[in-house]
């Protein structure tokens, strides 16, 4: 029995269109013109307990609409959605008691209160028994290294510190399902790593189901084996990230630094991407030509200083994927 | 809502270049530009203006009903007729937005966000800049409400036969003239007061406290709560002379003839005199505050 069941979910908005100016305002009072926006059409997928899924897609594609419906704060126009047997928007209180949500740019903690006071208040809001709360809190404080932050008012914390507190706050009631909406946005490198490491551990060791929305593809790379790509209100892909990557850009990059000026390379299984003095950037398909074989050929033919192999930039892969599926920014 | 000016300089109106031919006229243009800009932006809040008009009509009605009930018991000691009290009430509601209760919200926002010191980045006189903006803000809020209220109280009410509860025209041509002058003075005085509140805010770097203390003073001493003439006669000369009287009591008394002739001239002079005093005081104080901010960091 899947934990999350989404079937043919659709969401249509009607926006009133109004002409600008005074006449437009008057006309708007009498006869309104409506524009229909299909934010989601026939979206279906399932998640099992304990999965860690990345939800990606171009801006305006329907990601946040999906998250809002799954969390229960938005009603769909059509379709079915069940989380642990509950319909989120219909059984709001029971549903939200079992989920945790972290918004990357908005803190749920009280701005003027010390962090620990905010945690205590959440305990009361979520009706967590004191013993359970104390154990969970202490564990989270240790894992996220919040010890020194607890007595400080939230407004005095840096963004990275706030995010770690945010994540702890969302987990105090031990939800079985965690939504992360852009959790690493604006964070410095060490904080990003800390967040990724924590989320990965949470999922692996405690079996918490995680749905991660992000534009930072390194988050996805680090955490999500499965990605769901939403574009134009529809699911464009649902499967392993590696398969998506190889489906889009089944090639790797080879950087060669020659001893002299870079030669012209006219081989059929290799594509020259860039030339810069003595350096060449090449693209090749590892399925056709394994890297060692290619490297051997180059070294045999020319004097080479240095060689290294790279995957293409994740952002490139994703951008190309969006392009291929005709889903640019809405 | 900053009249189009960014932190890097004032917004010059389109078509103005720094050529020598234009340089003479460019002295005033930033200030006129920011006035026009803020006026335009604030005038766009049509729904708010309409809601304000409805609210103010309602409060006017309450006041008038209370006056009527009082007068019904005998007007022997009343310092003005019921009709004049009604006139005063309608005028008070129409021009309500000129009462300097709060600091300019833009300045409050600057204090909140800590951006006050950036005002010094503009090559303009900060006091004059703020003054023009406060002026635009209050004028833009009053114009639509006053227009609607006049339509309601001076046109609609007489039309449905309730003329004696409406707003009559000024009692004489002379009164109308003096009223116009006094109203202009009122607007300037109001802006000068608003600037004082702005400066208090900038000086204390908090956006809440100062707001609440100005309102009671303004309400009572301007005659907004009750026309000053109703207060005991002993207090009259003091009440008439203090700066707040020019915000409500002086212009409206001129309108219905409570003050006239030399009295009206004196009233306008008083308004302007206090305005100048507040402006000079405000300028000096703002200079000190700004210098301290630049040194200490806002």
């Amino acid at each position, binding site marked *: 029995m899947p934990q999350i069941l989404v079937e043919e979910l659709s969401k249509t908005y009607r926006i009133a269109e109004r002409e600008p100016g005074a006449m437009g305002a008057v006309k708007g009072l009498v006869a309104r013109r409506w524009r229909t926006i299909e934010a989601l059409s026939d979206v279906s997928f399932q998640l099992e307990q304990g999965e860690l899924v990345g939800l990606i897609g171009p801006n305006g594609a329907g990601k946040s609409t999906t998250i809002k419906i799954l969390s229960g704060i938005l009603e769909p126009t059509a379709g079915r959605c069940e989380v642990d047997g509950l319909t989120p928007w219909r059984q709001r209180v029971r549903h939200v008691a079992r989920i945790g949500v972290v918004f990357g740019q908005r803190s749920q903690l009280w701005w003027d209160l010390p962090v620990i006071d905010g945690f205590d208040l959440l305990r009361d809001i979520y009706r967590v028994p004191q013993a359970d709360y104390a154990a969970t809190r202490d564990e989270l404080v240790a894992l996220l290294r919040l010890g020194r932050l607890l007595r400080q008012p939230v407004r005095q914390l840096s963004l990275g510190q706030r995010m770690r507190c945010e994540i702890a706050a969302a987990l105090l009631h031990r939800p079985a399902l965690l939504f992360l909406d852009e959790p690493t946005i604006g964070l410095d490198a060490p904080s990003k790593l800390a967040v990724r490491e924590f989320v990965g551990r949470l999922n692996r060791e405690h079996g918490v189901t995680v749905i991660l929305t992000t534009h930072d593809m390194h988050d996805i790379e680090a955490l999500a084996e499965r990605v769901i790509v939403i574009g134009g209100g529809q699911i464009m892909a649902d499967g392993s990230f590696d398969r998506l990557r190889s489906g889009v850009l089944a090639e790797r990059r080879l950087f060669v630094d020659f001893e002299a000026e870079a030669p012209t390379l006219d081989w059929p299984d290799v594509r020259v991407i860039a030339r810069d003095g003595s350096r060449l950037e090449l693209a090749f398909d590892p399925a056709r030509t394994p890297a060692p074989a290619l490297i051997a050929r180059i070294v045999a033919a020319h004097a080479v200083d240095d060689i290294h192999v790279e995957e293409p930039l994740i952002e490139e892969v994703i951008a190309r994927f969006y392009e291929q599926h005709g889903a640019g920014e809405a | 809502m900053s009249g189009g000016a960014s932190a890097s300089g004032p917004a010059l109106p389109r078509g103005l270049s720094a050529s020598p031919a234009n340089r003479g006229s460019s002295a005033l243009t930033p200030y006129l530009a920011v006035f026009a800009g803020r006026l335009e932006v604030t005038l766009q809040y049509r729904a708010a203006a309409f809601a304000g008009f409805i609210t103010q009509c309602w409060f006017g009605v309450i006041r008038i009903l209370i006056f009527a009930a009082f007068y019904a018991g*005998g007007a022997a000691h009343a310092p003005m007729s019921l009709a004049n009290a009604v006139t005063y009430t309608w005028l008070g509601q129409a021009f309500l937005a000129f009462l300097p209760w709060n600091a300019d919200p833009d300045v409050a926002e600057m204090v909140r966000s800590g951006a006050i010191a950036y005002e010094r980045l503009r090559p303009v006189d900060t006091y004059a800049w703020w003054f023009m903006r406060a002026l635009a803000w209050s004028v833009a809020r009053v114009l639509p409400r006053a227009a609607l209220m006049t339509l309601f109280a001076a046109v609609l009410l007489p039309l449905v036969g309730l003329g004696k509860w409406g707003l009559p025209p000024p009692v004489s041509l002379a009164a109308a003239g003096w009223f116009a002058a006094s109203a202009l003075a009122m607007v300037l005085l109001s802006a000068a007061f608003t600037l004082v509140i702005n400066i208090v805010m900038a000086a204390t770097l908090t956006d809440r406290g100062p707001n609440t203390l100005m309102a009671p003073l303004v309400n009572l001493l301007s005659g907004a709560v009750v026309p000053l003439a109703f207060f005991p006669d002993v207090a009259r000369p003091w009440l008439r002379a203090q700066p707040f009287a020019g915000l409500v009591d002086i212009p409206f008394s001129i309108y219905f003839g409570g003050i006239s002739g030399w009295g009206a001239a004196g009233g306008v002079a008083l308004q302007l005199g206090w305005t100048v005093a507040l402006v000079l005081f405000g300028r000096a104080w703002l200079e000190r505050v700004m210098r301290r901010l630049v040194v200490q960091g806002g």
Partner: protein
Amino acid sequence: MNALALYGRYAATSVRAQFSYAGMLTMMSLGQFLVTVIEFLGVWALFHRFDHILGWRLGDVALFYGLVAVTFSIGDMITRGFDVFGSVFVRTGAFDRLLLRPRSLALQLFGYELRLTRVGRFAQGAGVFAYGAWATHFAFTPAAVAILAFAVAGGVALFSGLFIMQATLSFWTVESLEAVNIFTYGGEAAAQYPMNVYAGWFRNLLTFVVPVGAVTYLPMLAAMGRPDPLGAPGWVLPLAPLAGFAFLAVALFIWRFGVRHYTSTGS
């Protein structure tokens, strides 16, 4: 933790937060106090000139004035969350976070802030009422006290309901919210004087539609032991505050409708 206890927690938290700005708190409460004292000075000035209004003297009016000031200040104190709902919650999307908590939205909004500065108005209202009680030799019989307490409760329910309606309105518009002041601040202003001084249509609006008169004027008459000059039956007077509770129920019903609208159209 049940709802009432949680509200207690919210209130305690809010109070603590406000005390961290102690200087500001005092200044604002003082300001509040002054605003309202000055307002009453205006009333006093009018009575100084006119002596009475439709037979009511300053002491009588002070009772009505004090009662509504106390009532309104309590209502104003507990409904800050609804008062700023449009700008703080709807416009910023912070309302979503409230939806994500397993608690009633109304409870969370009541718990948003306990506006201590309103103590200034409360103090002034109590002071004016005390003056009125002294001036009219008010008899604090158990019945009178019970009626007054019931009136305050009903009044708090009424004003809370009005602020809840204002918040509901902000799901649709933020600009026009000022109009609700007609009944909140306007209702308070009107109820400062005994309702029979107003014209019929006005009085009826404020007794039957937005029952401000039912939570102030009518029960006050009962507490004073006076019959209604306009002839309402005697038994109605002390029970009239029920209208305030009814109004609150209606307001909460409409509120739910507004929330439904929000969750189906998104922010």
